[in-house]
């Protein structure tokens, strides 16, 4: 059996931002019983023994955990590569120094647009100036920096400005990832989806920038799968490369899989090794045996693995169907209709976006972010 390479640790769903495309669950209140420091340390040791090499620390806003430095130090002690995915709200010079001392390898800061008014509007809170200052601080500390931008109808026309900003900040990488429609983004799908004309322009800007910045800054651009011919190879296959641990210890094959009607798995009840190897959850869509047609007989079944189980469930109510994004799917009309609406329907405005609700935690720690993990 394959061993996982990466683990996404969602430390808390608390967040100071209210991004309308947040991929966190809608029922945030169900996740308040967060793992303790000692529980996370045990999970990290189990993850390393299982083969995990990369730890992505996310949330919500991971800085909302006052023990983040301790968690990073434990991870580094185990030899894990540590990657912080943050809004940067809460990243004071003191905390940055503490994280640096703990051995944090890499920092990813999200930004919502290339100018304050729009960025703050999308984030639902005043944050742009702080983010830019935090990005500068990270670079001054000689830390590798990635700028993360979730792309959608309301900022896709600013991709050129975002690339200029990343270059000016000295970012090593920028991820321009079109929104994936899960969690809050699913709720806001119509208002978020860009038009075909917008996508065409953005792709031309990205191509030119890649040429200009080759060897200087890495540019990752993730297209929206609704516009693809084939589905994304979600998580490189169910239970093949990666796993996610949620704030209360739930373990998932992908961060959106909490939506599926499947047996649960938790580090509070089972070892990570049992969950990876044996649990019904991780075995449900592993390999190709579960596949229906057209996937079962498709040459691409081990290239895109039938696409995304969560998207199949969201669109058809059945997680075992072919991802409707695929043009060969019998349910493809569901995606084609949404794309048609985004190109022919009335133009949605920023005001049509429903922000993620505010979270209030029961513990004393401040709260922290949005997260949109790029599907590899």
């Amino acid at each position: 059996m394959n061993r996982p390479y990466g683990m996404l640790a969602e430390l808390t769903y608390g967040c100071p931002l209210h991004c309308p495309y947040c991929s966190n669950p809608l029922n945030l209140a169900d996740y308040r019983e967060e793992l303790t420091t000692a529980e996370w340390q045990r999970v990290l040791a189990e993850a390393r023994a299982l083969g995990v090499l990369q730890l992505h620390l996310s949330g919500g806003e991971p800085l909302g955990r006052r023990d983040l430095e301790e968690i990073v130090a434990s991870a580094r002690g185990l030899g894990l590569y540590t990657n912080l995915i943050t809004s940067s709200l809460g990243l004071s010079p003191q905390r940055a120094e503490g994280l640096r001392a703990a051995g944090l390898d890499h920092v990813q800061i999200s930004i919502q647009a290339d100018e304050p008014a729009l960025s703050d509007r999308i984030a639902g809170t005043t944050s742009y100036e702080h983010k830019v200052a935090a990005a500068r601080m990270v670079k001054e500390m000689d830390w590798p920096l990635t700028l993360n931008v979730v792309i959608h109808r309301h900022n896709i026309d600013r991709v050129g400005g975002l690339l200029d900003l990343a270059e000016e900040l000295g970012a090593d990488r920028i991820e321009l990832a079109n929104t994936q429609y899960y969690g809050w983004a699913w709720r806001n799908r119509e208002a978020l989806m860009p038009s075909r004309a917008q996508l065409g322009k953005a792709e031309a800007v990205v191509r030119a920038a890649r040429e200009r910045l080759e060897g200087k800054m890495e540019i990752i651009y993730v297209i929206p799968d609704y516009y693809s011919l084939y589905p994304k190879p979600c998580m490189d296959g169910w239970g093949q490369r990666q796993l996610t641990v949620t704030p209360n210890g739930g373990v998932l094959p992908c961060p959106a899989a909490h939506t599926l009607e499947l047996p649960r798995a938790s580090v509070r009840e089972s070892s990570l090794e049992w969950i990876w190897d044996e649990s019904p959850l991780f075995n449900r869509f592993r390999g190709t045996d579960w596949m229906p047609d057209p996937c079962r007989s498709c040459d691409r079944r081990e290239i895109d693995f039938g696409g995304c189980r969560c998207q199949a469930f969201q669109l058809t109510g059945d997680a075992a169907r072919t991802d409707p994004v695929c043009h060969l799917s019998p349910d493809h009309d569901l995606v084609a209709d949404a794309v048609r609406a985004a190109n022919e329907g009335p133009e949605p405005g920023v005001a049509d976006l429903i922000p993620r609700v505010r979270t209030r935690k029961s513990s004393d720690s401040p709260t922290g972010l949005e997260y949109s993990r790029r599907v590899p």
Partner: protein
Amino acid sequence: MSIAVRSTNRPHLARQVRLEWDPVREQHVLLAPEGVLVLNQTGAIILGLCDGERTVDGIVEELGRRYDRVVGDEVRDFLSRLAAKRWVELGGE
């Protein structure tokens, strides 16, 4: 996208990249912000020699002392691919 590797370059790992031994897979691995590269033995030895002091020619020469068959082009191609990903910096000439 191909980056030219010169014999006089003095390659070293980019600062955001770590070379580690993975006791679970019993292989060397290269760890980067959003990726892992599981290395074969030769790859691990080449990267172990990328100390920012040795030249590319020096690395090929050192490999030649350890192995019968060393193809300089393969070493340069390997370094070029990693340089394109910005996992290796080719360094001063």
